[in-house]
């Protein structure tokens, strides 16, 4: 896994632990882990100080998203046992100097760019967490449709009807039938984001709720899915563009 990351670690640090923490860092705009996207170029540590170099797809990647990724990377890695200091480097980015200096000093975004940012990044981060929710939900809805469930049936399902067996995700339907929804990852991702957004995850809550926590009715589900599909296509197309451009950029170094 992640063979393209250049690693140099002392025996005291376990690469798996580091990867596990890094897997939590997402490109907020794409809702994908930066490790999977190939944005991590190298990780080097000496005793308790680790330096990680990120390589973003373009020189112009928006500084706000770049900041979030750098900040999240540092925060996650500082939680690794045995590490006391983490330095994040951004390779070939127009604002690398400012972002590195601020992130590595533990400063907030608005401290880093006092003239150009009017507030912190929470709102922006939230906007993309919400888009990611719709995308994750669309995948689940697609699996529900593929498993043969009608919109009426989907609208009746509650959170408590969903359960996992090993790598499989199963759903109890109204006639007592058990539906196989395929790989558990799709539902896990949906549930994780649903909980991150503080949406109701109790067993009696509807399985499909919108971003305001409201139940989506059987009549509303078709249009809901049509819109969700476009959100998914948009995020996927961006991810695809970014990885293609990054691969081209790496090829030249």
């Amino acid at each position: 896994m992640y063979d393209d990351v250049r690693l140099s670690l002392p025996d005291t640090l376990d690469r798996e632990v580091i990867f596990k923490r890094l897997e939590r860092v997402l490109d907020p705009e794409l809702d994908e882990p930066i490790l999977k996207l190939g944005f991590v170029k190298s990780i080097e540590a000496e005793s308790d100080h680790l330096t990680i170099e990120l390589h973003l797809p373009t020189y112009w990647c928006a500084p706000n998203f770049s900041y979030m990724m750098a900040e999240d990377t540092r925060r996650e890695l500082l939680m690794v046992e045995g590490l006391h200091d983490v330095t994040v480097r951004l390779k070939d980015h127009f604002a690398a100097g400012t972002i590195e200096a601020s992130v590595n000093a533990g400063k907030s975004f608005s401290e880093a760019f006092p003239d150009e940012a009017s507030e912190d990044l929470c709102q922006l981060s939230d906007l993309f967490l919400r888009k990611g929710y719709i995308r994750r939900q669309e995948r689940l809805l697609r699996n529900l449709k593929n498993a043969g469930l009608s919109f009426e049936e989907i609208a009746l399902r509650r959170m408590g009807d969903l359960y996992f067996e090993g790598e499989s995700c199963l759903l109890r339907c109204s006639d007592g039938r058990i539906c196989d929804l395929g790989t558990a990852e799709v539902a896990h991702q949906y549930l994780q984001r649903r909980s991150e957004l503080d949406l109701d995850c109790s067993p009696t809550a509807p399985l499909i709720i919108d971003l305001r926590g409201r139940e989506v009715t059987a009549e509303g589900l078709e249009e809901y899915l049509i819109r969700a599909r476009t959100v998914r296509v948009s995020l996927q197309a961006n991810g695809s563009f970014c990885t293609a451009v990054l691969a081209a950029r790496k090829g030249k170094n």
Partner: protein
Amino acid sequence: MYKENGQEIFVVDGHMHFWDANPENWRNEYGEGWIRCFYDFHTALSPEEYVWPFEKYCKYGEETLIKDLFAEGYVDVAILNSTYLYEFYKKGFNTHQQNNAIKAKYPDRFILCGSFDPRAEEAGLDAFRQMVEDYPVQGLKLYTAEWRNGSKGWRLNDPWAYKYFELADELGVKNIHVHKGPTVYPLNRDAFDVADVDYAATDFPNLNFIIEHIGLPRLDDFCWIATQEKNVYAGMSVAMAFIHSRPKYFAEIVANLLFWLGEDKMIFGSDYAIWTPKWLIEKFMALELPDDIKEEYGVDITPEAKRKILGENVAGLYGIDVSVHREKLSQDEIGVKLAAGA
């Protein structure tokens, strides 16, 4: 023109550039960063045989452009963007003054886009009027992300932008091509937010807003806006380039545009010289939507839709009568050469 089954398809490249990014023209590291980023786009998505060396990419010259567009690229008319970027390039990246040289030489082959920057405020209004008087400016290309004196960008619904739209309308410049890109001001906002398009399109119903690169990376937000506004169009450059290496995504993007906007609102563009029109158009003409996508979206791309997208839609926006224009083109220098070679 593209010929298929004895039919001639009129092709307008809705979005192309004639830039000078020669290292001598770089003002600073941003000039280099800019063109290298474009070059990454070029190499990432072009078929291998269409990849240029970096030196050629920096400055390709008139002869190459004429060959790539008109001799080999099936293009009849090209919409020539003007992008200034004086903070990155000493003489500008491709200004309307520079672009006008090639426009003057082949007047029926190019539609020249000028621009404005609302941050020039009152003084800029006079300069804008002067530009429209002095140059055959038929459309505008707006670049909201451009840096200027410490400001890192502006929005279409800024009060000063509205004064320029009023003037553009008064002067008869109706087609506004908008590049949505990483406007980095204020930095904590979504840099690619397309919400300002909604305001401007509603408040200026006489103007047409062609959103270049279909709002990517905000395709979803763009679709919601374009569905509500009659005068918002999808400029398909950049998205087009997916057709080679990511054909499935491309098909799904097209299905989304057909579903939300319809075939009358979609406009082809190559973004030359980021990509060359020849392969884009050949692959687009060969495009068929996969059955699962057709079924799911309930749309299809017909030969008629392709004709509209490749030229008729934007020709309509610029008031080009295709049959009259074809006749003119057959008699200009390029047309005569093409006929002799055919």
